[in-house]
């Protein structure tokens, strides 16, 4: 393993661990790698894959969490996508949705566009920003034990949660899910018992 990747989790394995035994968790991945990671972990009607709308993943999660207070919602996105929507952490911070977890797979690079360094590699600390926005629980996940603990928490958490998962800057082969937005929307709603 190269020095940059050392001590960091493998992204596909991390996503698989989080959704393996997901219960009734609703999952919104951000555009790019986290969408491919979630697809690779296995398709599910309760995944709302984002193929665009960069910077919007956390807010899609907020609207969903407010509409479905009885279900837990996990947004799993990358550091670049989160950086484009940093203000949404402030917006979520004052709404305090008890059923929303924002999980950032942080590898310090923009993997989709050629591995250019992201601001987190330059020292921007997303967990501190989330804490400053009012997230009382901000977790840093760096190893398998913490990842297993997080997977468990996703079934029990009862206040909004921010998690940084430190992943290696690797680029596994793309696994492309369904990309018809209307179909993704309709099947997600149907899975919740709503009219498609």
């Amino acid at each position, binding site marked *: 393993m190269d020095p940059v990747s050392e001590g960091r989790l493998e992204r596909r394995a991390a996503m698989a661990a989080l959704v393996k035994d997901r219960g009734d968790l609703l999952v919104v991945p951000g555009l790019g790698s986290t969408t491919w990671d979630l697809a690779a972990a296995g398709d599910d009607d309760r995944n709302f894959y984002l193929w665009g709308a960069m910077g*919007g993943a956390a807010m*899609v999660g907020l*609207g*969903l969490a407010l*509409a479905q207070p009885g279900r837990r919602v996990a947004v799993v996105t990358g550091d670049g996508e989160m950086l484009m929507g940093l203000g949404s952490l402030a*917006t979520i911070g*004052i709404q305090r949705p008890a059923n929303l977890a924002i999980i950032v797979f942080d590898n310090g690079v923009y993997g989709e566009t050629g591995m250019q360094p992201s601001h987190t590699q330059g020292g921007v600390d997303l967990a501190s920003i989330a804490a400053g926005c009012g997230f009382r629980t901000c977790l840093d996940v760096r190893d398998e034990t913490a990842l297993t603990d997080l997977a468990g928490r996703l079934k029990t958490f009862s206040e909004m949660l921010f998690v940084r998962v430190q992943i290696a800057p690797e680029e596994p082969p793309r696994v492309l899910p369904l990309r018809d937005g209307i179909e993704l929307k309709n099947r997600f*709603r149907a899975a*919740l018992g709503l009219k498609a």
Partner: protein
Amino acid sequence: MSTAIEWPDRLFAALQRADVRQVGYVPDAGHSRLIERCRADADIRDVALTTEEEGVALAAGAWLGGQRAALLMQSSGVGNCINMFSLARTCRFPLLMFITMRGEWEEFNPWQVPMGSIVDPVLKLCEAEVYRARKPDEVEGAAERAVQTVFGDERIAAVLLSQELIGKKVWTK
């Protein structure tokens, strides 16, 4: 006939009739009364945004979860939303917007003109239906048409609330 004071109440009534449960907004003087009404209503979740495009994503999430949302903003906010509109366009999410206009009638601040002057064509390029209300008694009808377009046809619609409705901004006190 509606008076100048009550048109925000008519917008609020339209939101209630449409069963809108989440209202995203960037604070705006023209929408201050409507925002106040939403904040005071226990059945409506008011979501203060840091920038308008957050509201486009909020509305998408709300619809995924079975709730209707609306977005309140000033004309300058339309520019901030353009890329995020692709979410509503690609997935055909209902998106209802009430937009107060700046940069037209009696505008003092020239910095408001560049965006204000292109709001209508920009929205149309983004496949939104645009309804204009210039006088208080046009507000309710425009809102009802927009609600029908958005939730009846699952499309994007905006009501543009002309600056005449809101009045001149007072710059010196």
